[in-house]
C-alpha cells in the first residue's frame, strides 16, 4: 500500500515538473539537440578541462601548504603553533566568495596584478589549505600515541619520528578524506563564474545566453558535475574500504 502511494506521489511530482517545462516550450527538441552537436560538446568539454585545471592547480597549492600548516599546529613551539592555528581558524571561517572578491577587487588597488586563472585558483587554494591542514592534523592525532612513544624509545628524534613513523601512517589514513576534499575543490572552481573565467559553469552560461538554452545548459552542466563528482566520491569510498577505517567516520566533508 505504502509502496503504491509513494510511487504515485513521486510520479505526480515528476509529471508536474515535466508539464511546467513543456508548457513553456523548454522540452522542445531543438533546445536539447544542441547538446549532441560536436562543436557544442567540444566547447563544454573545454570548460570541463578548465575546471579540472583550476582544481588541480588549487590542490597543488593547498596540499603542501596545508601539510605545512598541520605540522605548524602540531609543532612544539608556540611560535609556530599560534600563527598556524590562527590562519586555519580564520580561513575556515571566511566565505570563499569574500576572499575571491578581495583578490579580484582588493589586490589591484594595492598594485598587485595576477592572471585571471590565479585570481581564481589562489583563493581556492588558500581556503582549502586550512581544510587540508585539519584533515592532516586529524590523521596524525588519530594515530595511537604508542606509535610516537615507541619511536622516541627507539632513540629517534622529533623529526625522524615524524618522517619515518607518524606521517606515512597518517597520510595513508587520510587518503580517502583527501580525495573526498577534491570534490569540494571542484565545486569551488564554479566561482570562476564570478571572476568571468571560462570554466564549465561559466561556459554553460555563455552558451545559454547565446542560444537561449539557459535551463538546458545548466541542467547538462549539472549532470556533468554529478558524473565527475560521484566518480571521485566512489574512489574515496573505495580507498576508505581499503584503509579499513570504521564506517560512519565519514564527516560531511564536501560541503
Amino acid at each position, binding site marked *: 500500500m505504502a509502496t503504491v502511494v509513494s510511487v504515485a506521489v513521486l510520479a505526480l511530482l515528476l509529471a508536474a515538473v515535466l508539464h511546467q517545462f513543456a508548457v513553456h516550450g523548454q522540452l522542445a527538441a531543438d533546445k536539447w539537440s544542441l547538446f549532441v552537436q560536436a562543436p557544442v560538446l567540444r566547447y563544454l568539454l573545454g570548460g570541463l578541462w578548465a575546471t579540472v585545471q583550476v582544481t588541480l592547480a588549487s590542490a597543488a597549492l593547498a596540499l603542501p601548504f596545508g601539510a605545512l600548516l598541520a605540522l605548524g599546529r602540531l609543532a612544539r613551539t608556540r611560535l609556530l603553533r599560534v600563527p598556524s592555528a590562527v590562519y586555519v581558524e580564520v580561513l575556515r*571561517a*571566511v566565505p*570563499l566568495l569574500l576572499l575571491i572578491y578581495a583578490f579580484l577587487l582588493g589586490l589591484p588597488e594595492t598594485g598587485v596584478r595576477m592572471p585571471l586563472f590565479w585570481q581564481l585558483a589562489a583563493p581556492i587554494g588558500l581556503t582549502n589549505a586550512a581544510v587540508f591542514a585539519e584533515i592532516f592534523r586529524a590523521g596524525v592525532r588519530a594515530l595511537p600515541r604508542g606509535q610516537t612513544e615507541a619511536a622516541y624509545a627507539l632513540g629517534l628524534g622529533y623529526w625522524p619520528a615524524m618522517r619515518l613513523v607518524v606521517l606515512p601512517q597518517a597520510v595513508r589514513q587520510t587518503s580517502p578524506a583527501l580525495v573526498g576534499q577534491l570534490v569540494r575543490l571542484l565545486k569551488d572552481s564554479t566561482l570562476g563564474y564570478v571572476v568571468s573565467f571560462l570554466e564549465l559553469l561559466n561556459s554553460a552560461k555563455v552558451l545559454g545566453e547565446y542560444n537561449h538554452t*539557459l535551463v538546458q545548459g*545548466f541542467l547538462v552542466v549539472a549532470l556533468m558535475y554529478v558524473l565527475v563528482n*560521484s566518480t571521485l566520491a566512489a574512489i574515496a569510498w573505495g580507498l576508505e574500504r581499503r584503509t579499513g577505517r570504521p564506517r560512519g567516520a565519514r564527516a560531511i566533508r564536501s560541503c
Partner: protein
Amino acid sequence: MGFVLSHLGVFGNGLLVSLELSGLTFLLAGLLGGLLACCRIAPVVPLRLFAWAYVVTLRSIPLLVLLTLFVFGLPEAGVVYSLFWTAVTAMSLYWAAFFCEVVRSGVRAVPRGQIEAGRALGLTFGQVLRLVVLPQALRSTVQPLASLLIAVTLNSSLAAAVGVTRELTGQTQLLDQQFAQPLISFGAAAACYVALTLLIGRSAALLERRLVVQR
C-alpha cells in the same frame, strides 16, 4: 577604523540579511532533510531509492550551479518569484541533502537492539522513531548540525554572486567599489563571519554539554 564605524549601518544590514538568508535556508533544509532522512530509513523501497538518488545527486552538484539554474534558468520555464526566495529555495534544496545525511548518521548511531526492543514492545515504526530513535539521535547530531549551520552561513554569501547583493559579502563588494578601501572593508566583513562562526561553534558546545545524559 573610522571607515568601518561610519558605515556600521551597511555592515549591520548586510549581516542581518545574511542571517535571515542562512536562518531560513537552515530551517527549510532541516524540514526537507528530515523528511528525506525518514524516506531513507523507511521500509518502503521507492521512497528509499528516491531519497538516495536525491542525496547523491544534490551533493555532487555545486551550489552555484543550482543557484544559477534557479535564478537565471527557471524563469525561462515560467517559474518566477522574488530573487531572495529563489536563492533560499535553491540553497535549501542543496543543504537538505547534507542535513539528511547528518540525521541519518545520527539514527545509525543508535544501536539496532534499541529499535528491535521497541518493535518487540509493540511500538509502530512512527512510535519507534519518535520515542526511541530521535531523542537519542538528536544528541549525537549537535556537533555535525553546528558544522552544517556554519557551512550554510558561509555559503549564503554565494547568493551575492547571483544578485542578492543586500547580504554581507555583496555589501562589502559594493562598499569597496565605492570607496576603494579593500583592506578595511574586506577585513571587517571577514571579522563578522569569524564572529558568527565562533558564536555557532560555542553555542553548539554549550548545548551538547547540557544535553548529555549522565549514565
